[in-house]
């Protein structure tokens, strides 16, 4: 078995398409106890904001059927501390880092991107636009094509040309293709999808929402069919010329190599493992190896040949 797992994300070649998902691997240190994080395609770090943030109060999570809700509230050390400690550590172990940034307004995004622009060891910047826009009644940027586009174009303007910008989309929209098209038009070099779905669990003992933050993000295998659908729709729109081709980084409920292959066949050029790493800390590496096996079993010698393959199979069907 010798499948060429390399993939290309907007001009950057990764040794394999497996990544962690933002917020599900901290900054890689803990998972490094289980496997060498430099062996993954990339580590996507927890979305970082300008300053240190305590995040939301607890309870911050609820288990749901084949999934979970979380409401962490973007707890983190702030960009300076992140660069000094987390990014430096990732660089020191030779890992490729995709740095996820989040902001309450366009300025905060721009400031974060500016700080990262000249940092060595940043493989790409993932722009988490699934956070509330303080200026717009807290409406999530990713739910409005104009807000999404404003963030993406402002960040793109301050990042060096060689550094890919991935816009991370929310599935909680009526038309994901519209948002994807807006982001690409604004300069996104790739799209990560999907972020969590907005959900709620009621605690039946206290008879109130279980999360201190009331609603939270639904993730895990439960949402995989939604992720596959979103990736399919956007990739299909690219094939149809509705928006230009850009690599899609898939995320949502990947548990096994078979799950990863589903996202890939639907159109993903890379795959993130999020919630399932809580279940199995070795999952990102395990999925990488399982994916190689699944590709091999289907006669693929190169990972890239499988990207979007289901669209071709369907087009060729009688």
């Amino acid at each position, binding site marked *: 078995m010798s499948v060429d797992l390399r993939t290309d994300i907007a001009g950057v070649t990764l040794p394999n398409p497996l990544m962690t998902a933002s917020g*599900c691997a901290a900054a890689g240190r803990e998972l490094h106890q289980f496997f060498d994080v430099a062996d993954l395609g990339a580590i996507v770090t927890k979305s970082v904001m300008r300053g240190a943030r305590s995040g939301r109060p*607890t309870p911050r999570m609820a288990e749901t059927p084949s999934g*979970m809700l979380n409401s962490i509230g*973007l707890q983190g050390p702030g960009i300076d501390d992140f660069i000094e400690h987390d990014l430096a550590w990732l660089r020191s172990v030779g890992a490729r880092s995709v740095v996820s940034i989040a902001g309450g307004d366009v300025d905060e995004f721009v400031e974060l991107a500016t700080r990262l622009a000249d940092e060595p060891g940043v493989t790409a910047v993932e722009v988490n636009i699934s956070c509330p826009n303080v200026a717009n009644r807290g409406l999530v940027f990713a739910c409005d094509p104009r807000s999404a586009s404003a963030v993406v174009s402002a960040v793109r303007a301050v990042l060096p040309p060689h550094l890919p910008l991935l816009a991370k989309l929310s599935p909680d929209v009526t038309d994901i293709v519209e948002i994807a098209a807006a982001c690409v038009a604004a300069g996104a070099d790739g799209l990560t999808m999907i972020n969590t779905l907005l959900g709620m669990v009621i605690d039946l003992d206290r008879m109130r929402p279980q999360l201190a933050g009331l609603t939270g993000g639904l993730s895990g295998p439960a949402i995989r069919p939604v992720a596959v659908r979103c990736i399919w729709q956007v990739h299909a729109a690219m094939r149809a010329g509705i928006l230009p081709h850009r690599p899609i980084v898939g995320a949502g409920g990947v548990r096994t190599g078979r799950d990863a292959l589903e996202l890939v066949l639907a159109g993903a050029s890379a795959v993130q493992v999020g919630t399932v790493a*809580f279940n199995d800390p070795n999952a990102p590496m395990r999925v990488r190896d399982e994916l190689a096996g699944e590709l091999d079993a289907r006669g693929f010698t190169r990972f890239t040949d499988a990207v979007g393959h289901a669209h071709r199979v369907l087009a060729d069907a009688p």
Partner: protein
Amino acid sequence: MSGAPAAARPVQVRGTVLANHPVGGYRHLTLAASGIAQGARPGHFVALAVGDDPSSMLLRRSFSIHRLGADDTVQIIVADAGPGTHWLTTRRPGDVVDVVGPVGRPFPLPDEPTSCTLVGGGYGSAPLFWLADVLRERGCRVDIVLGAATAGRLFGVDQAQAVAESATVTTDDGSLGTAGRVTDVLPEVLTRGGTGVVYACGPMAMLRAVTDVATAHGAVAQVAVEESMACGIGICMTCVMPVVGEDGVTRMVRSCVEGPVFRGDRVRWDSWQDGVGRVPDDAVGAPTPTTGVGR
């Protein structure tokens, strides 16, 4: 006691159930899980995956290590509290359970012989008897207080009697020992033993009350907390609680890897109300009127 011990370096292994016996209202599970035992200290816990493949329950369940056995075995005491623990309590010898451990920072041990009182609420006593052995090896006096709502929810009364200078039992309903709470008897035990360190494990409300009593008696409280945990290894940020650091600054720290054992007087106990936490205003990065909170 020179600062908090370093966090363990966990491994992930396929454990095999060797035995599953009832003990009072709980199940005593013995797992063969190689690699967990080395490096494990009292206060460490294991995080188990639950449910048959493909399980609908994704999150790991955490259990204090009760004792280590010969040949890389790990013993835990499990209360049947919900679907995940129910699955565990119904495992049979030969069944496979995925284990991550040891996790967390163990109980810090006194550098020299000290009189210690160990307080366990319900199954919270599970890690205390191993701790008692280790303390006694170091020449410490050990007194034990066990409490529970009712006799059936006590664990290890026999072990306490065997290992400790004194073993005191309380039950809320008076079905065994003194009717009342552990904190009703604790002052006397602390006085009697000249206790310098109180180790406690049990429900949050008990840990808070024990901390208060210990502090009032000039003893240090070391408490093993139990926050809802999704991963158990420090990557999800669900298990945080406000704890005051050496520098006097309150931070929202992960109780899985920076705990589960904290000095009781460092925990901001005032931050919970009706099961919902609060981020203290003076915590690092606490929300201000101008910064919102993201999802």
